[in-house]
């Protein structure tokens, strides 16, 4: 025995440790694999020994090898052995190895459950620590289920070190075992208010991660997080919370309103870029979720854009990149604010960093308008010429096309310009996007009828100069445009000036070197051209020449190796021959030939097929015949517009070399010609076609780098159009001004004329150069609107979409170890363990069924409060929490009654009431709410913001909604500057069927002492598929005096001073037969009339509120039996009287 141990120790001395291994590997760079395989053999020997130190050393080395990419899964069991060592040194290594090497499919993991549990409850906090750390990496669903309860216990450990880790790991547990979320959540929530900041931040982390995935279940936590946000100074925590709010606001627009102010404050004050960036991002998200129309929101957007500009201007590439990224988010909703920074973004196109250039390109996409499209594209074209590297150039090319073609060519005013841009793009060398340009050419030529003449002329020139496109081998991709050119020339051949010339160009022998599918199109369209020539003059010289040309040249294509080309060519050849024969017999045949190609092709919408409605009674899944025993269904491949064709083997090799050679010769010759003043430049079409010479392979070929962009002669440059367009617009403007002047002159006699200032040109002023009718894509009749559900069913976070407000059911408890462990462990947490489990059970019983409703109304209440960030939460708990902090000792008796009253509480607490409704639309009015900035409004009259929710109840589309209110002397609807006093405000959105949206309207009030009723109308257009009708809905807006009150917290001493001052007038009211508990009564007053509780003693409470014009309103509410008496004081008796009437009314309704 002794001997064995001695031997073990001596062995150990000679064993390699990790350092030796690393050194060894570094010394054997040449034969690393061999060296490592000997090392692995050694390790295997070491693992066979009993000595745990040797084993641990071996495992440590294995962990290193694992990182280098060697498979160590065979040692999994040894790792478990080392993990279970009682010594921390080895345990640490064991857990590290496990966390690096184990994954879900490692089968020994299930052996570890008891060991981990033992370590979790170890008296040594570092044992527990390593176990938790390790577990976070290799937790499996089984481990999560078995250990969830143990970890939950650790969340209340005495040491913050353990609590922190336990809280964080719960997130991994939830992911693996979603059932644990509900039982563990209450405790997790508790940890948000843990005294240790580390634990608190861990809890924030976990809840934020959970909430980001399923925000709607966490809405009720908003007030708590709001409090944390306004009180925390830890940037890490703040970032998480702000991100969480970003996820919550789309679900609750009112939350957004509340957030804007603290967020803008943070933006102004913080020096941490990461926090600033997060705030800006969230403000953007908030503003996107709010509908526009709030006056102070444009300020927030401006602030964001300003800050982002600073980021973009920074020399730090990272900030620049992020600035651009965030800018593109603003762009989607507020394009105008971003457009003013066009200069900056264009500058970024010159940045050294490609990723920044690409971001800038993304932004440009959204910034174009009719006005600046040409200018932007011109800049981009310059960049195309300058760009190094084909990837970036290709990216530019696709972006140019994207920018121009977006939303159905919305921004293109001049399609001639666009066609010439496309033609210019064909000069690009080595681009892969020939097919993209081609499909644009086709699309424009087909859909913009007015442009066909021009397009055909351009395409004919392209065909004529096809050699420039195909000449260079590098330019393979671009020859796709010839496909489009040939098709356009053939299909719209009636627009061709000189069809003979184009026909000749299409039948040149060189065409046979093009890819098969392009040749096929050439042949087919040559036939169309032929038909046109024939029609233009049967028996004329042209037509006979055309005939001869066809008969002479087509046989070349008949021999083509490409089946499609061959088939079409031989068909057409026979056809031409037959026509010739008929013509010799003097038969008039042109009409019949043209009939072969009659009819127009219309574009079909990409989703048309999907949208064909299934006829009634047709079951697509039912078998028509009995299914065959083993069906071999071959899925039909979707056919692309252009079949990608691999070069055929049969094509002779030397043609390619020949191509290069030709290009070279041509280039040399061109340069000669260019420098020779005596050379009379021929038209490009007359260029000779070179014959293949034998033995060209031997000639050494030098690749010429064509730095000079090839210019296709005879083509107009797009720049010309920019100039032309500029002139045209100027002329337009001048014309308009003249007209305006005339009008003004005419009007001057009439007296008052509206002033139009012809300042900056607006979008609508730009008239398109041609009357362009864009043919819309065809859809099948009765197409169904379909929504594509794109939620990923495999998302692990989907399982965590769990309602957390529902009380726990009995079967939801976490599995607790039921059998007795063999050894009883002594642990510091054990004492705590028992009561914890118990309290879990009791909470199941005691949890009042109110939690859902009270949580919701809590949130509602909190949201409807005036946002006074530092104090808001003080007032918040009053509504739902029956025991406010100020009077916690007061009403323990009323607690058990609570469940009974919940139904009563549920309904009236809703914040929205019906305003008006008809069969088309429903208008819901949110409790009139004050403008955020209270101080600012105290002097200059007062503003009240009304939120109206419009809900489309019918099957049709509602648009052009206009909201109008008959102003009274006292209250006026705020209208944009320049509009008349009776003009309607247009609602800034349209409503598809079933959709609702919220709009806000600002009213200015002169006096607030009296309630107001305003009559209004909403007009809108109901648009059906075939008709549209004007509809009207009348409503009455009721401004109560309570809606002029702002919940303002007040301290009891200030309150006492106010009462003593003697400036206040007194009034009182008595309510009879009120049976609700006192705290509900207070909550109601707080909620509906915007009061806050100052102090509460037993059945007596003082309350305070302030009007938007600064009137103080104080209440003393007393209750005895079923009578409630309210004594009130206010410096404005009329207002007070009205408020009291309103309170009375509130309680008479229930």
């Amino acid at each position: 025995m002794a001997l064995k141990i001695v031997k073990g120790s001596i062995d150990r001395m000679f064993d390699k440790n990790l350092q030796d291994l690393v050194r060894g590997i570094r010394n054997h760079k040449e034969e690393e694999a061999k060296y490592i395989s000997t090392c692995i053999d050694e390790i295997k020997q070491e693992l066979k020994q009993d000595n745990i130190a040797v084993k641990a050393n071996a495992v440590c080395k294995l962990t290193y090898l694992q990182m280098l990419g060697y498979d160590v899964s065979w040692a999994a069991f040894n790792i478990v052995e080392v993990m279970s060592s009682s010594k921390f040194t080895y345990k640490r290594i064991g857990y590290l190895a496990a966390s690096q090497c184990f994954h879900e499919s490692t089968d020994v993991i299930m052996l570890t459950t008891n060991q981990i549990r033992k370590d979790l409850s170890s008296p040594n906090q570092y044992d527990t620590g390593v176990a938790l750390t390790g577990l976070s990496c290799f937790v499996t669903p089984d481990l999560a289920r078995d250990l969830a309860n143990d970890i939950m216990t650790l969340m209340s450990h005495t040491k913050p070190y353990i609590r922190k880790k336990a809280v964080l790991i719960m997130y991994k547990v939830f992911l693996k075992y979603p059932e644990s979320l509900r039982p563990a959540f209450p405790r997790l929530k508790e940890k948000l208010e843990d005294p240790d900041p580390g634990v608190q931040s861990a809890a924030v982390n976990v809840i934020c991660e959970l909430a980001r995935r399923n925000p709607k279940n966490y809405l009720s936590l908003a007030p708590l997080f709001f409090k944390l946000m306004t009180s925390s100074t830890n940037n890490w925590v703040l970032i998480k919370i702000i991100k969480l709010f970003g996820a919550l606001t789309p679900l609750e627009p009112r939350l957004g309103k509340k957030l804007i102010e603290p967020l803008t404050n943070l933006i102004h004050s913080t020096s941490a870029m990461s926090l600033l960036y997060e705030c800006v991002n969230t403000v953007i998200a908030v503003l996107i979720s709010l509908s526009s129309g709030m006056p102070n929101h444009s300020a927030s957007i401006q602030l964001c854009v300003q800050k982002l500009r600073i980021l973009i201007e920074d020399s730090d590439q990272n900030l620049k990149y992020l600035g651009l990224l965030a800018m593109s988010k603003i762009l989607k909703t507020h394009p105008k604010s971003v457009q003013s920074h066009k200069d900056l973004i264009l500058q970024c196109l010159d940045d050294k960093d490609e990723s920044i250039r690409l971001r800038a390109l993304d932004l440009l996409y959204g910034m174009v308008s009719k006005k600046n499209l040409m200018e932007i594209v011109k800049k981009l074209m310059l960049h195309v010429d300058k760009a190094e590297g084909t990837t970036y150039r290709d990216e530019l090319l696709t972006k140019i096309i994207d920018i121009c073609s977006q939303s159905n060519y919305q921004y293109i005013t001049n399609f001639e310009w666009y066609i010439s841009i496309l033609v210019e793009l064909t000069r690009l060398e080595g681009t892969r996007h020939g097919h993209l340009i081609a499909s644009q050419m086709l699309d424009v030529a087909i859909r913009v009828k007015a442009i066909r003449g021009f397009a055909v002329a351009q395409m004919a020139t392209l065909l004529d100069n096809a050699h420039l496109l195909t000449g260079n081998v590098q330019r393979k991709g671009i020859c796709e445009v010839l496909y489009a050119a040939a098709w356009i020339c053939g299909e719209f051949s009636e627009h061709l000036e000189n069809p003979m010339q184009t026909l000749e160009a299409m039948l040149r022998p060189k065409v046979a070197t093009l890819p098969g599918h392009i040749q096929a199109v050439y042949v087919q369209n040559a036939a169309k051209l032929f038909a046109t020539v024939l029609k233009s003059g049967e028996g004329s010289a042209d037509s006979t020449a055309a005939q001869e040309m066809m008969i002479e040249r087509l046989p070349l294509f008949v021999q083509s190796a490409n089946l499609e080309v061959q088939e079409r060519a031989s068909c057409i050849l026979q056809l031409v021959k037959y026509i010739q024969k008929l013509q010799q017999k003097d038969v008039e045949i042109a009409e019949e030939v043209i009939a072969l190609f009659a009819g127009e092709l219309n574009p079909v919408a990409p989703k048309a097929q999907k949208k064909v409605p299934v006829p009634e009674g047709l079951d697509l899944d039912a078998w028509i015949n009995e299914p065959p025993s083993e069906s071999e269904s071959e899925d039909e491949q979707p056919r692309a517009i252009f079949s990608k064709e691999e070069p055929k083997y049969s094509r002779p090799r030397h043609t390619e070399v020949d191509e290069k050679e030709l290009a070279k010769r041509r280039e040399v010759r061109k340069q000669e010609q260019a420098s020779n003043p005596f050379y009379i430049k021929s038209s490009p079409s007359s260029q000779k076609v070179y014959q293949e010479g034998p033995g060209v392979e031997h000639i050494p070929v030098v690749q010429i780098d064509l730095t000079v962009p090839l210019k296709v002669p005879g083509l107009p440059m797009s720049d010309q159009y920019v100039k032309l367009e500029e002139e045209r617009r100027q002329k337009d403007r001048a014309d308009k001004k003249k007209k305006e002047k005339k009008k003004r002159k005419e009007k001057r006699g009439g007296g008052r004329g509206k002033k139009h200032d012809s300042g900056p040109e607006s979008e609508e002023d730009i008239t398109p150069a041609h009357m362009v009718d864009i043919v819309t894509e065809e859809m099948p009749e009765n197409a169904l609107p379909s929504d594509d559900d794109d939620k990923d069913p495999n998302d692990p976070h989907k399982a965590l979409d769990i309602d957390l407000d529902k009380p726990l059911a009995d079967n939801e408890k976490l599995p607790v170890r039921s059998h007795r462990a063999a050894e009883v462990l002594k642990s510091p947490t054990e004492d705590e363990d028992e009561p914890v489990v118990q309290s879990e059970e009791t909470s199941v019983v005691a949890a009042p069924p109110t939690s859902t409703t009270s949580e919701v109304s809590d949130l509602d209440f909190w949201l409807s409060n005036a946002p006074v960030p530092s104090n808001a939460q003080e007032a918040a708990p009053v509504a739902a929490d029956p025991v406010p902090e100020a009077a916690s000792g007061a009403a323990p008796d009323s607690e058990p009654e609570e469940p009974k009253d919940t139904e009563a509480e549920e309904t009236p607490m809703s914040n929205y009431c019906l305003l008006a409704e008809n069969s088309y639309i429903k208008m819901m009015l949110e409790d009139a709410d004050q403008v955020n900035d209270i101080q600012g409004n105290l002097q200059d009259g007062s503003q009240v913001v009304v939120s109206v929710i419009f809900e489309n109840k019918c099957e049709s589309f509602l648009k052009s909604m206009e909201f109008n209110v008959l102003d009274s002397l006292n209250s006026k609807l705020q209208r944009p500057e320049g509009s008349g006093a009776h003009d309607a405000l247009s609602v800034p959105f349209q409503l598809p069927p079933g959709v609702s949206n919220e709009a806000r309207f600002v009213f200015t009030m002169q006096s607030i002492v009296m309630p107001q009723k305003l009559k209004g109308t909403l007009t809108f257009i109901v648009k059906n598929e075939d008709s549209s009708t004007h509809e009207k809905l009348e409503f009455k807006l009721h401004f109560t005096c309570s809606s002029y009150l702002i919940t303002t917290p007040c301290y009891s001493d200030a309150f006492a001073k106010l009462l003593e001052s003697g400036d206040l007038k007194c009034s009182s009211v008595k309510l009879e037969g009120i049976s609700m508990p006192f705290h509900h009564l207070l909550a109601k007053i707080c909620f509906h009339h915007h009061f806050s509780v100052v102090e509460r003693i037993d059945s007596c409470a003082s309350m305070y509120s302030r009007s938007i014009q600064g009137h103080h309103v104080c209440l003393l509410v007393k209750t005895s039996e079923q009578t409630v008496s309210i004594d009130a004081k206010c410096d404005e008796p009329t207002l007070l009287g009205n408020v009291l009437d309103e309170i009375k009314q509130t309680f008479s309704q229930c």
Partner: protein
Amino acid sequence: MQFMLLFSRQGKLRLQKWYVPLSDKERKKISRDLVQTILARKPKMCSFLEWRDLKIVYKRYASLYFCCAVEDQDNELITLEIIHRYVELLDKYFGSVCELDIIFNFEKAYFILDEFLLGGEAQETSKKNVLKAIEQADLLQEEAEVPRSVLEEIGLT
């Protein structure tokens, strides 16, 4: 955070920490891909790139690249901050850290990382606390590992 990788300018992996369960094969593929992509980037380029559906945040410190993969909505700047914080921690622990420190004491580098991040989330934002925890754990380790001579062991038996 989904994972963190440390690799050298030569593309050798020095440290890897995965916070999402992936098979060895996938891990290898991802790290190979990323190492290549990042090493190909020019020094003047920004530290962020979009990769598959993740965002990659990386930074180079001397000869080592630190690279983190975060999700779409995560904050890039705070991830950079995490990387920097980790480097500071290594620096404090090893005393002006160099690549060799991490190679030869790679388990220590892991221990520090584990004290700083857990399950991909920052667990301790105070540098002092992280180092304190590491030091105490190390102390525990040394206590357990009081070197016993061969003779002593014989004598004990």
